[in-house]
């Protein structure tokens, strides 16, 4: 409701700002600094933004303040700790809401509800209104609920007045400032730029959030388990009874190995597909094949996992296992680095192909003409001119695919197995950091034990490692980036 009023004010502001700007320029928009609609936006933004900001702060602050004051009404001895208090408070809120509902449903008059002080039978009344209460209402709770309602009503009224006043003030201020020389566009654009910066900062906030949500448990883990054993241990064998060995090296090795194989599959296939699509294929072929390949990215990973487990694994065993086609005995079980890597590679194909295709397509035609005019074949043109021009973007696409490979769980669990192992043989079962993070988090171990907490340490370590890799990649891309046109 309030929101609607503010929005309506903003809309009026938009129109009035426009009109005023136009009239200040004698009706001729050419004498204005900016387009008339910018003046409109300027007024609308001034009306909306401060008012909504205050509204937002108020919405967060009011419950806190009211809660504090209502809490004092609840006798100290009726609760043991802050948790229980919060439960009582939620009861209070529920009763208050129920009373409001009752008034709205004309079960009670407003005065009746306000005067109500005897909780007798109230549970039933409210229950009939769909407000379920766990138990009978205590008189103190009811009193608190009444107080809550009063405070809430006042607070809401003050809030409404303040917000509307602010909106009007912003409106007036912006409207007064509107004249032909006012740089409305610059103001509006500054606003938009702030928005853009805000959007870009979401990434930073997310990172901070991730670090904060991992750090406490990570520290807790290192208190229980020596960091040296974690970082340099070559055995991973958690056990419930304690005495686990939790070395990260085998997991890291598995991660790298599997990602490497996955990329070795996805990058050539994806790149060649992208090149073919953008350089050779007719628009019709491109129009159908590209989205078809994108479907590969959308198939749930569990399907890939099952595909690895049931189809690819046994197939590989038939080729590389004992008694297989090759007559070698490299592969014992169906789960192996190779199985998971191959299947993951298939999943990653569209990551490489779709993005690269767009990027290759954006290389200017004059570049191709230049090469073809020298008598280069199409493939030479692609390899030596188009590809280098598109390289920075392609590296981005590959990095994205690599990131997915590192973060993938389901395929690893089903395709590569759960055994942590340091081995060079790609036909052995291994596992990755990510898979272990998931399994330790969703396991049955004591949540305060190192076996469960290690998930956070693993997450943190992986985070730091990928961060370093990314800094390195950025440095590389910077070094080799070339502008074309």
């Amino acid at each position, binding site marked *: 409701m309030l929101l609607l009023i503010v929005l309506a004010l903003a809309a009026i502001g938009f129109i009035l700002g426009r009109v005023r700007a136009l009239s200040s320029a004698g009706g001729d928009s050419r004498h204005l600094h900016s387009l008339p609609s910018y003046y409109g936006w300027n007024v609308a933004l001034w009306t909306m933004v401060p008012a909504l900001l205050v509204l937002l702060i108020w919405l967060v602050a009011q419950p806190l303040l009211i809660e504090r004051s209502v809490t004092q009404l609840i006798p100290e001895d009726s609760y043991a700790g802050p948790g229980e208090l919060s439960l009582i408070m939620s009861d209070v809120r529920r009763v208050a809401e129920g009373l409001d509902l009752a008034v709205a449903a004309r079960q009670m008059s407003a005065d009746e509800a306000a005067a109500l002080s005897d909780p007798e039978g109230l549970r039933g009344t409210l229950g009939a209104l769909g407000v379920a209460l766990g138990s009978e209402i205590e008189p103190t709770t009811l009193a608190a609920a009444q107080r809550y309602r009063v405070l809430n009503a006042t607070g809401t009224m003050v809030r409404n007045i303040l917000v509307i006043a602010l909106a009007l003030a912003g409106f007036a201020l912006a409207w007064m400032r509107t004249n032909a020389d006012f740089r409305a566009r610059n103001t509006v654009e500054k606003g938009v730029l702030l928005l853009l910066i805000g959007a870009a900062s979401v990434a930073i906030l997310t990172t901070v959030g991730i670090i904060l949500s991992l750090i406490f448990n990570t520290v807790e883990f290192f208190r229980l388990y020596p960091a040296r054993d974690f970082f340099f241990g070559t055995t991973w064998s958690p056990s419930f009874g304690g005495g686990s060995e939790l070395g990260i090296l085998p997991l890291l090795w598995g991660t790298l190995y599997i990602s490497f194989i996955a990329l070795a599959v996805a990058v050539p296939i994806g790149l060649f597909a992208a090149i*073919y699509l953008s350089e050779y294929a007719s628009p019709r072929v491109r129009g159908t094949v590209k989205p078809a*390949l994108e*479907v590969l990215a959308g*198939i*749930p990973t*569990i399907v890939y996992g099952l595909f690895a487990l049931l189809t690819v694994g046994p197939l590989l065993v038939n080729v590389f296992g004992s008694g297989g086609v090759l007559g070698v005995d490299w592969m014992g079980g169906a789960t192996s680095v190779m199985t998971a890597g191959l299947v993951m590679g298939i999943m990653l194909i569209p990551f490489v192909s779709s993005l690269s295709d767009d990027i290759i397509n954006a290389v200017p035609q004059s570049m191709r003409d230049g090469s073809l005019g020298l008598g280069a074949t199409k493939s*030479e043109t692609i390899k030596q001119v188009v590809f280098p021009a598109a390289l920075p973007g392609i590296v981005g696409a590959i990095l994205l695919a690599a990131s997915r490979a590192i973060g993938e*769980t389901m395929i690893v669990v089903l395709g590569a197995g759960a055994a942590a192992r340091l081995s060079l043989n790609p036909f052995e079962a291994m596992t990755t950091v990510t898979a272990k993070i998931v399994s330790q*988090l969703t396991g049955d171990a004591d949540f305060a034990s190192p076996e469960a907490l290690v998930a956070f340490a693993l997450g943190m370590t992986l985070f730091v490692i990928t961060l370093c890799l990314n800094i390195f990649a950025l440095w590389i891309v910077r070094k080799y980036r070339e502008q074309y*046109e």
Partner: protein
Amino acid sequence: MTDATSAGAAPRPARSSSILEQDARTRKRNAAESRFKMYGIAAIGIGIFFLCVLLFAIVRNGIPAFTQTFITAEIALPGDRLDKTGNRDPEEMAKVSTFGYKPVIVDGLVRALEDAGIEIPFEDKADVEKMISAAAPAQVRDTVLANPELVGQTVEFRFLASSRVDGYEKGRVTRGDLARDKNLDAEHLDVVDAMKDAGMLERTFNWDFIFGADASESRPEQAGIGVAMLGSFFMMLVVLALALPIGVAASIYLEEFAPKNRWTDLIEVNISNLAAVPSIVFGILGLAVFIQIAHLPQSAPLVGGLVLTLMTLPTVIISTRASLKAVPPSIRDAALGVGASKMQSTFHHVLPLAMPGILTGTIIGLAQALGETAPLLLIGMVGYIASNYPDGVVSGFMDPNSAMPAQIYEWAKRADPAYYERAWGGIIILLCFLMTMNIIAIILRRRFERRW
């Protein structure tokens, strides 16, 4: 005549004089050319091949989930057992739980079989209950509570057959399999065959699978993906409404406006790093931030959507930036040259040109979000969440719900093989969802795409 021309050219290399016949080097280069092209075709072939294999497997395993076996029978609803007071007061009648309805159904079914002249070959006639779904008592109870006057009458009901019977109809369960099964015996199958002949049992398309809610482990025949589908839908709304604008805005800032300094480098590294963060870590983050700090409800699609937004943002940003980068600088110059501000040049010219790439990134990001389970695990969207249909937009966002991949993941883990088939059926629906999204994006992409 060519001799004459080449005689005068001092450094001219030995090159075939006729363009009609290829010299050795050209042949070699052309071979390389066709090889290169073949690689491309092979790459696409491999991709398409695997796509077909996967789709074939999915469809073959999932199609049975779309049909279901039903048993039709007339059931007498005795007043003395369902409404002891005889007041036909629904509140009173609600005291009779589903356990009280079970014998009524068994009796009714036995009578129906006798009426149809079907011999019951096992000793304990109550064993007929093994043929119908455990959902039947609730079905009858709900019908009775909704229409109390039905008590005392004989009403025709259409019950789900139990998963074993259904499996028999679909060829999943054979008589041999039942030898050691305590849920159904081979004799039951004789009854099933007879019922089929008598028209009491039929297999029809199962809309409830598409629109229904999840069911517990003991009655796979009742489970549907509808509610999870809505959960996914609401989550995708959140992701689309947040990830696309935030992602595009962030990319525009970084690519077009940001000064090249430490701060933007930091953002840049951060974004590509976030792309590599395992999705479950986003679940940890979501649990901490959205549920424990912001006090948003648990298991809610809103929270799921927020978490998935954070997860997809890097994908959207990276691909958007790549396509912004690909827009030639001359376009920006042109716009600035006629007095457009940087903002105008970006929004009027650069952004539309970058649209195809942005859409590609968004599709991939959304597809990833649509298929992701791990982060949902931690914010409570995986498990048995059979709330019924959300009754509005707000409850769609706030009420506990699951998501399609979570539902599929759950089903795939469950013990009854009937759930395995449903998991694949769920995947088919998920893919349909995905294809719809893709097609929309492709149509949009077509409208924006051009080579300049």
